[in-house]
Each structure stands twice: as C-alpha cells, then as structure tokens.
C-alpha cells in the first residue's frame, strides 16, 4: 500500500534528531578557547567565584550560549519553513517580509536616541528590535490585506514597499549616528550569540517552543496552502486565517530570535531547503525536523565562531554565511533530481 507519514514514524524521527541535537550541544559545550575538563565541571561550583573555573565556564558561559544557539537556530529554521510555504517559494527566508528592516530600524533607533532602560531582560536594542520587527510585520499584513485580501502577491509587494521605505529611514539614521553607536548597531545586526541569564533563556525558550508547537498544529493545512488559493479552499482550508496564523506565529518566533541574537542570516533559508530536499515537503515533518537541524547547525556554527580564531570571536552570522553556501550547493548537486522546478 502507499506510504504515508504516520504519527509513529514522525515521532521516531523527531526523537532521533533531538538525540543528535543533545549530543551536539554537549560536545560543543566542551569545546572552547579555554580547555576545561568535565570531571572538574561535575565537581560543582566552588565556594566563591574563581574556585572552579571549569564549572563556571561550562555553566556560566558555554551552556547558555549553546542553548541560545539551539533556540535561535530552531526558531529561524522553522520560520523559514513557514515563510517558504506561505509565499509558495523555496527561496524565501524569515526576513523577507520586513522583519529584518523592522528589527534594524528598532535597534538603530534605540542606539541613536541613547535609550538606556533595560527592560524585559534585554538590552534596549534587543527590545526595540523585537517591537520593530513585529510592528513592521503587522504593517505589511495590514497593507497586504488592504490591497488584495492578503494574497501572496500583495504580501510580497507590501513587503518590498515597506523594506524600501524602512531602509531609507535606516540609512538616514545611520548617517547621523556616532561612529561607535554605528559600530554597535552593525555588529548587533550581524548576528551574535552571547551569554544570557537563565530567566531570559527560559522565557525565550517558552515563547519559541510554544510558537513552533502552534505552527506544527497547522502544518498539515500548510501543505494544502502550497497548492494555491483556489485549490486550498476547495480542500476546506480557510486560506486567510491559516496564512494569518502562520505568518503571525512565524514573525513572532523570528522576532524573539532577533531580539536574542540580532540578524543571523542563512539559517532560515538553507535549512528548510536542505531538509526538504532530503525528507520531502510534508510540513508535518519538515517543520519539526528543520527546527532541530537548524538548532544543530547554529550550535556548530557558533562553536566555530568562538574557537576558530582563538581569542578573536567572530559574529556567528559570518560563519553561517560561509558555511551555508557550499553546504547547500552540495545538497543541491546530490539531490537535484528530486527538485522538479530546477529542470
């Protein structure tokens, strides 16, 4: 009989991928510019700071970074899957509909106007970037709805318009920024994984995981959505609602990721693509697997970013770009016969 995806099969695959993720995270937490020994780590914290540095480095610096990288990678990869489904385009990425320029504008605004309040456990740049990203997404959706019932083309057009406008504003603000403010913003926008407090990690994890779970619940409808507006309606899917829910959730988890780490590029574009080439386009599987593999990818990329040049730490966005390109080419070459639209 014909092969279909069952919940059993999916669970097994997801569990295996999760196991790989955990292993990778542990391995990467052991690697870094300072050598540490796991035995000392397990000895527990010292009486006062400085007694057991191995523990401090592992628990205070590496673990938070590795967890953060996994969360951001998962959020961006899942968001990429969703945007590619909504826009029916395998080359979409999570930033395409205004999130990147919105986040950038938020970040640079916070810096230029010298806002210093620390709230919601994030620096002012992060929080404003979050607000900017969501605000822009809402604006794009609103304009899209206004001009054409939120159909794909109108969304894309609205996204292009907003991106253009916001980029102009960003350019203006950039021109009046102080050099060190500027450097700060650009650096932040390049994508960085840093150590955050447990409470920030906890809340962010809750948000991202909840978002991914909600997206999983509508992923079978996303399959149908990719067939086209008319076909989807004929199969009982309320296209506007589904698109709105998917877009909103994807934008939310992307905004959380951007707030945590700036604009890390490439993950949201290549991971869904690569996973789709190997596992097929069924979103019930594509979504969770992409998320986990996105996490693995970013954990490894961040580990490279912080060890490859010794003391000099690279922004993780540099590694994702350098590593992502060739990796994707390799996948493409190997599996290209499966990809129909390339022919």
């Amino acid at each position, binding site marked *: 009989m014909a092969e279909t995806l069952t919940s059993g099969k999916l669970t097994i695959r997801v569990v295996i991928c999760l196991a790989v993720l955990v292993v990778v995270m542990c391995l990467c937490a052991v690697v*870094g*510019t*300072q050598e540490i020994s796991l035995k000392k780590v397990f000895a527990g914290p010292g009486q*006062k*700071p*400085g007694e057991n*540095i191995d523990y*401090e*480095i592992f628990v*205070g*610096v*590496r673990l*938070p970074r590795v967890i953060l990288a996994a969360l951001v990678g998962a959020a961006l990869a899942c968001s990429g899957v969703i945007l590619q489904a909504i826009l029916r385009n395998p080359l979409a990425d999570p930033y395409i509909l205004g999130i990147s320029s919105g986040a950038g504008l938020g970040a640079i605004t916070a810096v230029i106007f010298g806002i210093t309040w*620390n*709230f*919601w*456990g994030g*620096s002012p*740049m992060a929080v404003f970037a979050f607000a900017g990203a969501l605000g822009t997404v809402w604006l794009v959706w609103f304009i899209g709805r206004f001009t054409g019932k939120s159909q794909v083309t109108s969304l894309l057009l609205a996204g292009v318009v907003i991106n253009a406008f916001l980029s102009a504003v960003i350019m203006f603000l950039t*021109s*009046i*920024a*102080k*050099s*060190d403010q500027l*450097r*700060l913003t650009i*650096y*932040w926008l390049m994508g960085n994984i*840093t*150590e955050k*407090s447990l*409470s*920030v990690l906890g*809340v962010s994890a809750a*948000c991202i995981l909840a978002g991914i779970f909600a997206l999983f619940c509508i992923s079978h409808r996303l399959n149908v959505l990719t067939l086209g507006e008319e076909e989807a309606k004929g199969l009982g899917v309320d296209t506007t*609602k589904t698109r709105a*829910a998917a877009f*909103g959730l994807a934008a*939310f988890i992307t905004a959380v990721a951007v707030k945590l780490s700036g604009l890390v590029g490439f993950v949201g574009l290549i991971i869904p693509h690569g996973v789709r080439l190997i596992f097929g386009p069924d979103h019930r599987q594509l979504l969770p697997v992409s998320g986990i593999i996105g996490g693995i990818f970013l954990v490894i990329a961040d580990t490279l970013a912080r060890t490859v040049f010794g*003391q*000099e*730490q690279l922004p993780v966005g540099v590694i994702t770009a350098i590593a992502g390109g060739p990796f994707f080419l390799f996948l493409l070459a190997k599996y290209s016969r499966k990809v129909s639209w390339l022919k």
Partner: protein
Amino acid sequence: MKKEWYAIALIWLGVILFIGVIQLISNHREPSQSVVDISNKPNRIVSLAPNLTEILFALELEEQIVAVSSDCDFPLKAADKEKIGTFWKPNTEAILAAKPDLVITLWFEQQKAVADSLKRLGYRILTLKIEKIDELLTAIQNIGTATDRKAKANQLLKNINSQLNNLQLKLGSVNKVRVLWVVQAEPLRVAGRNTFINELIQLAGGENAIGNTLQQYPPIGTEEILVCGAETIIQSAMGKSDIAEQQKAAEKFWSKWEHLPAVKNKRIYVVEPDTVTRLGPRLCQGVELIARCLHPDIFAQKQNTAQ
C-alpha cells in the same frame, strides 16, 4: 471573523504582558549593583579597555593586573599581559580563566553584556562611564577606592589638575584659535562641540570652528568648510600607517581650500592619536599636544616641557 482577530490580538497582548511581568520580577531578584566592596584589596584585576589599563598602571597596580584587552598598548608593559579578547568583544571564558577578583569595564553595550554574565557568576565588577573629562576624574577616584589606592588616586588627580592649571597659566589670555578637528577624511567628519575632544580643544586655548550641531561627529560639506574660518586643522592619525605619510596626504587634501586661514598659513597637523582620543591619565599630554599645534609661538619660547 472579526471577533477572532480581536481574540487573537488580546491573547498576544496578554502573553506579552505576562512575559513582561515575569521579567520585571526576575530583574528585581537578580543582584542589581556592582557594589564597590572595599573589604578586600583586589589582587587579580582584569581591565577591558586601554584607558582603564593606563589608569591602573598610573595607580601603580602593575603587579595586580592579570589580563587586559588586546588593544592595551601603554605603557609598554601592558602589552605583555594576558589578553582577553578585544575592546569590542571581550572573551568571557578567557576572563574567567584569569581568575580575577575585580573586573573593570566600560559602560557600553558589548562590555555591559559581559559584565552582566560575570556578575551572575558572582564576580566583582566595576563599570565606569568615561565620555567627558569630569567623568574621567570621577572614574579615577572610583578605581582608586575599589583598589585601595585612594591616596595614589588623589595624587594622580592633583597632578592632572595642577598640570592643567599650569597650562592655563602659560596660555594666559591668549586669543582662542579656531580649530577644525577632523575625525574622518572621507566623507569628511569633524568633532562637534558636544564631544570630549571639544573639551580638550578648549583647555588648549582653542575654539571649535564648527558651531553647535545635532550630531556629535557631523559630516560637513564644502559650504561649512568655506565658512568655518578654521585657523588650524588637526587630524588624529589613523591606523598604523606612518604619520609623516598621513601628514603629507592631509596637506594635499586640504590644498584645495586655499582660502582657509589654516591652509594659507600651513597649519595642518596630523597628531599621534593615543593621548587625544583616549580619555586617560595622559590627558595633559594630549592637551599640551593640541596646545602646541594651536599656539606654536608660546611653546617655542619656553624650552622646558611641562610634564
């Protein structure tokens, strides 16, 4: 349909508020201040910025310094210390490996994040904001208190103040020279009046050729250059390339504006950057360097350099 939109929006708002409340609560629970604890004399100090390192050396804490950021180059012994990443991106792991009992950082975002991480692990952090001369003086005092070098700190402050006073005396009631301070050649950016460079200029008997501007380091156009009437143009050397070369390049660049007094009288100077762009204990050297450029006649007469 509409009702569902409202419901969704309300739920989102609720979630965000909920998260905000949790954050507020957790923020309060975290230890909020880097309390300057003077009970222990710190023996292992890490400095994350070149000017902080200079202050520490000036307070005779050379032995207590265990690690510095990689761009700390003065005094020369600073370059021999362990490195813990750059000024822009300090490496937390390396800092931990140095087992500090006091970490001194600057106030901007990247360093603040590292400071927060260390604070969470229970380390003693001193964070300073040094963007103006009086902030520098306060910082010297704070560092002195934190490292149990109050006496030395006060001495240092006295020295700085007396040197500045001597300089003022020497300059007397000289006419203020109009200065254009170039921060970047292309596009042309200058230091405005709201910068510490402006403070240095004023102490050196000068006046910024540019009026009040919105930005601290505004890019200026040809019109402003023509109108500013700068009598001296000063540029701090950039990068590691030869100063003499940069001097020649600057003179060539400015030769276009032959009507400017500075160009006519050949008063274009490229100066060593460290004493004028780093707000540190060599403040007076920096001011004097600028004063020499602005009032060469006064300094030519006297042979002794006040140091």
